């Protein structure tokens, strides 16, 4: 697999995960970020049209996933440090 293909596949996986996460936000709910207010529907539309927003959302999914993994394996980080 070429580097481009690999990057594309990883990107697609991240986008798919982020879309799944966004499904949990009801269309009529609001996202309030600082002074910005978006409805759930607008958030989903923004995800489709704004690359930076899509990247940010994908990173949020990964961060959440890592956080959960880290919490479920609390000893691992310490073990790595002592290696």
């Amino acid at each position: 697999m070429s580097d481009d293909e690999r990057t594309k596949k990883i990107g697609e996986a991240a986008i798919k995960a982020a879309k799944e996460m966004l499904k949990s936000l009801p269309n009529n709910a609001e996202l309030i970020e600082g002074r910005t207010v978006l409805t759930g529907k607008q958030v989903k539309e923004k995800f489709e049209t704004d690359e930076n927003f899509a990247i940010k959302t994908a990173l949020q999914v990964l961060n959440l996933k890592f956080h959960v993994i880290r919490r479920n394996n609390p000893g691992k980080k310490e073990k790595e440090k002592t290696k």
Partner: protein
Amino acid sequence: MKIIFAAPKFDRATEYSYEWCLELQQYARSLGHELVILNIEDAVKEKVEAALTNHPSACFCFYDHGNESCLWGNDDEHIIDLSNNNLFKNRDVYTMACLSAKKLGADSYLRYKTVFWGSYDLISFTTDALPLFKKALNYGMTLRLDGETDWNNIMDKTLLHDDEVIDEMMGQGKFFAAALMLQNRNARRVWTDKTPPNDQPSDCKFRRLALKLFGQRGWRIPNPLRLLCVSSISPTLQC
């Protein structure tokens, strides 16, 4: 304990944060704390400055908008920025204002020994999980009102509580809310002698010389040119 609460209400975000702050005020009152309340139209610069001047040892609790170097009042003007944060001298400040732990929080700690609780990033929340966001964002101040005095202990307990809130959100299938809650958690900071800000460069020659000669104590040596720097060159300059 004496607490000054300031809570503007002028946009969608502050409609919520105002309610959350009211809840803290009611809780503080029920515990017998002495309160100075500056809500909505009273949450403006002159009244905040007067309250801080008249109550030099009171804790200051502010909900909501801010940026790296200021807190915004009800009239959308700065109520506190780097030109008057000397009013935070030797006091505890608790705020959910976005980005406030950056220059404003760091400067207040370094120069005025303020214990500063704030955020290093934007604060985000969604209305499908409002009670849980409120619970998490109010938690640190609630512990302080309950009598916990060590802000680092409060931070440790709050981070654990945040994890519980994230679990609860995920348990309810609110994954986007949980991701935002994690972002808020990771951005939370408290500047104390145990956890001081350590990445604050200064553009000011006077300050750099003072830091070189006196280490971190150099932040607390008054700079006679500071007013000039802040007002005429850059409001975010660490001078």
